């Protein structure tokens, strides 16, 4: 039997994608389906005086034209955010179509539904909206002024929340008495996620059964159903099914409950036909929640030996025009808690202010808060090394939490379970040939060439997370997950998970776990995900939680399956359960050749003619898993670049990554995830950045203006 754990099994999901048989939301066609186009605001901030839909309604082939007033009149609610940051957080209503004001370019004002996409596009141009443009605010410092335009009339100073973590007094004192203080003003620029599949949704209401199905390109189908049913539309949850079929990348941007999902669900109930909406890329640029966008001031104090004694951080976090689903949690709990990094900093204090502006909402993006913390901390480390004339690797090394100090409680409320930070640093330096690189750098400088060596030693809090902790820090949902194992009478197995794969390879990795535990061939295992009608419950995929939480739930369910299977096998073999071994897919009575295979046990469970007294027939088990803590992967990356002194062009010469992510089920898939993460990081460092002009017009509104790394921009990764 193959040992599946730690093996780079080739992905089982590949075949459909490489042959063009993937099934993404926009690929689906339902009988009688109509197509929707959303009319969007060209203004960053304007009062809506009137919306004239008559000409659009008259356009041949148009089925309906709907506005925010229609939605309100039908008695439905705004879209809530999912994270409460303090009791005073301002959470102004986010209607799926704007009612009185538009608050960012791209805010929806009307929905045109027609027989096909082209007709809907033509008719959308006939919707006449009279706007009264208002002064817009884009810059966070300006937004906080008393005389700034208000994005929401009842939110003074555009301040949604102020949040802080850590010991303020101890940190102030540590900074004041430090031997050296490194101070830096940070701009962590706004990014646009740009999953290559534009978002798409189809609402389908079956009148006869009063059942609503929503197909949506989401990382998170159960949460979308919960929000839609419990908060937004007040629908009975058992009459609503949310399906996320193949999803073409997410990177966080497809976690959230978006207006267009609500609109398709609402419109299909009104017109009695399926309604599809698919974003054009230019729409993605003004409707997909964007990422990062922090302005920070940070001070790091060091003692005479170079030990970090305190870190003080003040961050303004741009929320955009509305609070998206996880918006408040990202620049607070997923950011401030990471500011200890790998270091023994005794005092840390962070304050984050969430600010509304007339820009697209901001939420989780690849790493979500944690990369912002890592960048800030690691940049300070480099600057401190430069200012105090120390080697940056050495400065990090002397501040590391040591392997014998775990579990380690940080001053920002995390308890790290384990780690060996020096080991990953050493490995990375050795792979990179760090000392030689430093000599090469000196030599290059002597020749007038600019070689740069970058280091980053990071920690992440992943496997999000214990529900108790999530609740304590304001998340409005639990963060467990579920796994169900259905063993069919022939011994074939289907696995139902509440997490969702949109590139992460769950169909392979999870099948490896099941095949390993049940000791059956992987070909006998199939994963089912992304359908609330099939899967008991789930919290979706984000925060590196799929394997740590979803995989663990599957593991728990497998233990139950094996426990029951053992009872059936013991009965068949007329032996005590404890006298059985399970190996190579067979229960064997210890010390004998009497054995029964897993397939026979499964068949017996469904044809229980000769069966243990009192045991239920069938072999199907469900488990929920709520972890006790986050997981804390860590590592060090080293990057060598050359900068052209004349043009400023940066060429990456080498990239070395050493990561300790714990037990690896499929190294090939894990490496692939790291590759994608590096590309996103390089993208932010060298290419990407969302730009708005002072009036709130996005200047990076297409792939022609917003630059992402292409194949030639990246090196082979080591």
């Amino acid at each position, binding site marked *: 039997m193959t040992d599946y754990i730690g093996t780079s099994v080739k992905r089982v999901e590949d075949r459909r994608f490489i042959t063009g048989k993937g099934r993404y939301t926009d690929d689906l066609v339902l009988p009688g389906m109509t197509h929707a186009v959303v009319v969007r605001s060209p203004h960053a901030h304007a009062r809506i005086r009137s919306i004239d839909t008559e000409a659009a309604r008259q356009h041949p082939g148009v089925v309906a034209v709907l506005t925010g007033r229609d939605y309100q009149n039908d008695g439905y609610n705004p879209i809530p955010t999912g994270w409460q940051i303090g009791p005073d957080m301002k959470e102004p209503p986010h209607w799926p179509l704007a009612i009185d004001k538009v608050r960012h370019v791209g805010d929806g004002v009307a929905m045109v539904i027609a027989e096909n996409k082209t007709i809907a596009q033509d008719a959308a141009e006939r919707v006449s909206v009279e706007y009264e443009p208002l002064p817009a605010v884009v810059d966070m410092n300006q937004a906080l002024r008393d005389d700034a335009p208000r994005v929401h009339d009842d939110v003074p100073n555009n301040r949604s929340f102020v949040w802080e973590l850590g010991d303020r007094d101890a940190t102030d004192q540590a900074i004041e008495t430090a031997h050296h203080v490194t101070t830096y003003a940070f701009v962590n620029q706004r990014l646009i996620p740009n999953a290559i599949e534009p978002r798409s949704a189809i609402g389908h209401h079956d009148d006869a059964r009063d059942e609503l199905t929503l197909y949506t390109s989401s990382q998170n189908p159960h949460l979308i159903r919960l929000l839609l049913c419990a908060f937004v539309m007040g629908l009975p949850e058992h009459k609503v099914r949310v399906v996320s079929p193949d999803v073409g990348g997410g990177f966080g941007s497809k976690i959230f409950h978006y207006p267009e999902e609500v609109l398709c669900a609402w419109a299909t109930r009104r017109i009695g036909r399926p309604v599809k909406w698919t974003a054009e890329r230019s729409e993605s640029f003004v409707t997909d929640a964007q990422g990062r966008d922090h302005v920070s001031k940070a001070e790091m104090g060091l003692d005479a030996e170079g030990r970090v004694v305190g870190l003080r951080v003040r961050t303004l976090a741009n929320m955009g025009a509305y609070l998206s689903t996880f918006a408040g949690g990202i620049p607070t709990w997923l950011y401030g808690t990471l500011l200890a990094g790998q270091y023994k900093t005794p005092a840390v204090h962070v304050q984050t202010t969430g600010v509304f502006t007339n820009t697209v909402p901001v939420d989780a993006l690849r790493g979500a808060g944690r990369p912002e913390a890592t960048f800030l901390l690691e940049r300070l480390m480099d600057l401190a090394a430069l200012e105090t004339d120390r080697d940056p690797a050495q400065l990090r090394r002397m501040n590391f939490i040591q392997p014998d100090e775990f579990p380690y409680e940080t001053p920002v409320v995390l308890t790290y379970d384990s780690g060996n930070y020096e080991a990953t640093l050493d490995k990375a330096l050795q792979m990179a040939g760090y000392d030689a690189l430093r000599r090469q750098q000196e030599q290059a400088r002597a020749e007038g060439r600019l070689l740069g060596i970058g280091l980053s030693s990071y920690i992440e809090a992943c496997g999000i997370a214990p529900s108790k902790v999530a609740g304590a820090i304001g998340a409005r949902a639990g963060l467990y997950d579920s796994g169900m194992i259905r063993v069919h009478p022939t011994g074939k197995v289907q696995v139902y998970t509440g997490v969702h794969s949109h590139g992460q390879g769950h169909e392979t990795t999870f099948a490896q776990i099941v095949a390993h535990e049940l000791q059956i061939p992987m070909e006998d295992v199939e994963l089912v995900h992304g359908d609330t009608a099939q899967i008991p419950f789930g919290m979706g995929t984000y925060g590196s939680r799929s394997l740590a939480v979803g995989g663990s739930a599957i593991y728990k369910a497998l233990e139950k399956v094996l426990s029951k299977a053992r009872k059936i096998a013991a009965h068949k073999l007329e032996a005590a359960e404890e006298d059985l071994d399970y190996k190579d897919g067979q229960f064997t009575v210890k010390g004998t050749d009497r054995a029964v295979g897993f397939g026979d046990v499964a068949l017996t469970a469904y044809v229980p003619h000769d069966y243990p007294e009192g045991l239920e027939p069938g072999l199907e088990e469900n488990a929920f898993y709520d972890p006790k803590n986050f997981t804390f992967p860590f590592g060090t990356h080293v990057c060598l670049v050359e900068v052209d002194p004349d043009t400023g062009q940066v060429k990456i010469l080498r990239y070395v990554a050493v990561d300790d992510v714990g037990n690896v089920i499929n190294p090939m898939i894990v490496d692939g995830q790291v590759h994608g993460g590096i590309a996103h990081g390089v993208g932010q460092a060298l290419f990407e950045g969302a730009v708005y002009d002072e009036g709130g017009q996005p200047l990076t509104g297409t792939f022609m203006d917003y630059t992402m790394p292409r*194949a030639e921009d990246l090196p082979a990764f080591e």
Partner: protein
Amino acid sequence: MTRPIHVTVNGTARQAEVEPRTLLVDFLRETLGLTGTHVGCDTSQCGACTVHLDGVSVKACTMFAVQADGHAVTTIEGLAPDGALHPLQEGFHEKHGLQCGFCTPGVIMAAADLLARNPNPTEAEIRHALEGNYCRCTGYHNIVQAVQYAAEKMAATAHVGAG
């Protein structure tokens, strides 16, 4: 309003009435139901819609269907005979050259064009040839390896064939 077109798609002669403004990609996806060709942007930047026109890669979002009249179009569904895999498709599987799979058909079609012109490309040539295709998942590392795998495999097959 509409115009008749005759296009050979994946070896099969197809005819249809299309609006002059219908894009080739919409004709493929909506009229013919060939949903393996994807739309990732509206500015010809992402390459998810890459197909072959008379054997040369083109972006199907930047062509009208009427421009394909009288020509032969190959999509990802027609790259290999039913049930078989093209060496590139095999390479992407073997080398984990895809994650979410959305850009993959376009990348494979662009790489097929490269290998037709240059059967033994260097790493730099591969990266250059894929400049018209965005991938947000893989960082391209394994895509390059997948194309190298296919080049080697095709060279070996050609050698055997010639031998």
